[in-house]
């Protein structure tokens, strides 16, 4: 019977065979909770007792909630600043690291170590760095260079970039490693051929490295965007009371969701915000897949 299947049909059977167990698992552990969360967003529920169906009431509340809009705006700022800075830095570092001959392992480790360390501990260290002079290191440098001291975390305009910096710093090691793996996955023969043709390193970068890194770029664009839109740890650990202050200046959406769900126990409203976050992430990811020319 198997012999009568076409190649395409055989492929299909194998594919679904490979996918069966993992998809069943995802359905149970991820999809079902997501669908449940969507229905939860249409209810009022405080964890105990029945879920009261309220229709789109929670979404209507969102529209009229100034904190939600501020928090949404902050979240996009994290993305708009974080994505280009972190990916730009990571690519430059990985590109040059790949060409280094001496002590490459050590230098790689230096860049990766921040990614290994827990945010709780590192957030504390960064808070010290941001202290006013004479305690804080950053202000020490600013003053030494002749600039005036800056309030950083105590300013409504500077706090967001100040919290973002350690988040970029911690993610950098991850991105560098992925870029490195991507660069290393490019067949050596391509480079050899180009070198024989007498191409310079800039030409090689443009003609070979960047195009062949496209799958890596797609991956990092999407995962990094998701990472910044879901930023939580550093904000939670670097602002007083974990509230994303001062005056909500650093509060991201996920922190707002967390506080709504577990401090206010307003699960329906928290779910509605999660659905919004999910929709944004999904649209953005599909857009990136399309724009970055993902081919079938």
């Amino acid at each position: 019977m198997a012999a009568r299947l076409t190649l395409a049909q055989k492929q299909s059977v194998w594919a679904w065979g490979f996918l069966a167990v993992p998809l069943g698992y995802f359905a149970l552990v991820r999809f079902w909770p997501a669908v449940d969360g969507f229905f939860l967003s249409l209810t009022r529920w405080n964890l105990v007792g029945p879920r009261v169906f309220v229709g789109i009431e929670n979404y209507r509340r969102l529209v009229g909630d100034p904190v939600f809009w501020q928090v949404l705006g902050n979240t996009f700022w994290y993305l708009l600043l974080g994505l280009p800075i972190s990916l730009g830095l990571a690519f430059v570092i990985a590109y040059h690291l790949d060409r280094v001959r001496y002590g490459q392992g050590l230098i790689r480790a230096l860049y990766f170590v921040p990614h290994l360390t827990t945010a709780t501990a590192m957030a504390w260290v960064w808070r010290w760095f941001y202290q006013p002079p004479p305690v804080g290191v950053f202000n020490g440098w600013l003053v030494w260079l002749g600039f005036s001291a800056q309030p950083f975390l105590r300013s409504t305009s500077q706090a967001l970039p100040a919290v973002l910096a350690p988040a970029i710093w911690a993610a950098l090691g991850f991105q560098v490693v992925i870029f490195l793996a991507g660069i290393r996955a490019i067949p050596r023969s391509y480079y050899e051929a180009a070198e024989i043709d007498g191409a310079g390193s800039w030409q090689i970068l443009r003609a070979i490295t960047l195009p062949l890194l496209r799958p890596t770029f797609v991956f990092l664009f999407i995962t990094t965007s998701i990472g910044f839109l879901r930023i939580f740890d550093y904000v939670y650990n670097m602002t007083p009371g974990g509230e994303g202050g001062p005056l909500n200046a650093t509060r991201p959406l996920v922190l707002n969701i967390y506080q709504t769900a577990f401090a206010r126990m307003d699960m329906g409203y928290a779910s509605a915000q999660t659905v919004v976050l999910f929709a944004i992430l999904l649209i953005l990811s599909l857009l990136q897949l399309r724009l970055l020319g993902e081919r079938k």
Partner: protein
Amino acid sequence: MRSRHPVAWILLLLGGLTMVMPFVFMLATSLKDNSEIYDLALLPKSPTLDNYIAILSTSRFPRWFAVSAIVATATTVSVLFFDSLVGYTLAKFRFRGRGLVFVLILSTLMIPTEMLVIPWYVMAKSMGWLDTVWGIMFPGMVTGFGVFLMRQFFTGVPDELIDAARVDGLNEFGIFWRVALPLVTPALSALAIFTFLGNWTAFLWPLIVTTSPNLYTVPVGLASLSGEFQTDWEMIMTGASIAVLPTLVVFMVLQRNIITGIMMTGLKG
């Protein structure tokens, strides 16, 4: 093998040293006596291992370490296998519904863990997994992140290789296992590092699902050492320094593969 750039090298090294400064600050704090930690001098005046002794002699620390090691290792093995299998399928098979399956799996990255703990808990309770090692690890056995990563790397594997293997009479699983998988060692190593790390530092779910201190993971155990009004930062820094060690070892061992796993594709490509 490529050009030597002393300037780039020096800049990279300086950048790396800057990157590692907060980490050094943490290590230095962990070596300080609690009367000294607020001096903010980088080097401890009289370094002490007392903080380490205090934490390591916590009776349950070896157990937390063992639980973390089991959870992180088991999930990493499972993730490596299933994620690369699914990633390979999505990258190299043509079948109806492929795009949808990919987007569905990608979408699992978009829901914050914070909102998943309640449904997971309900599930664990109904299956009798509460307060067990399996309960800690079950949500992480297959990850959308890894599927996505592996899919991206498998797309770079030339189709000709796979076709050649098919002609040689290997079945589809054999092709995946013997031909395709060895070609993506760098990505596998990266995935192993991130999965191990992610599970080693996971906090919220292990905390929610366990009640016995004997089943705590290292991060949960360390968190249980500080309380509502305790801010013993020297202890938190020490705990974080200890917790970093195993992941650093895993990184040092596996990172070689990212570099030396030079692709055989180069021979034929």
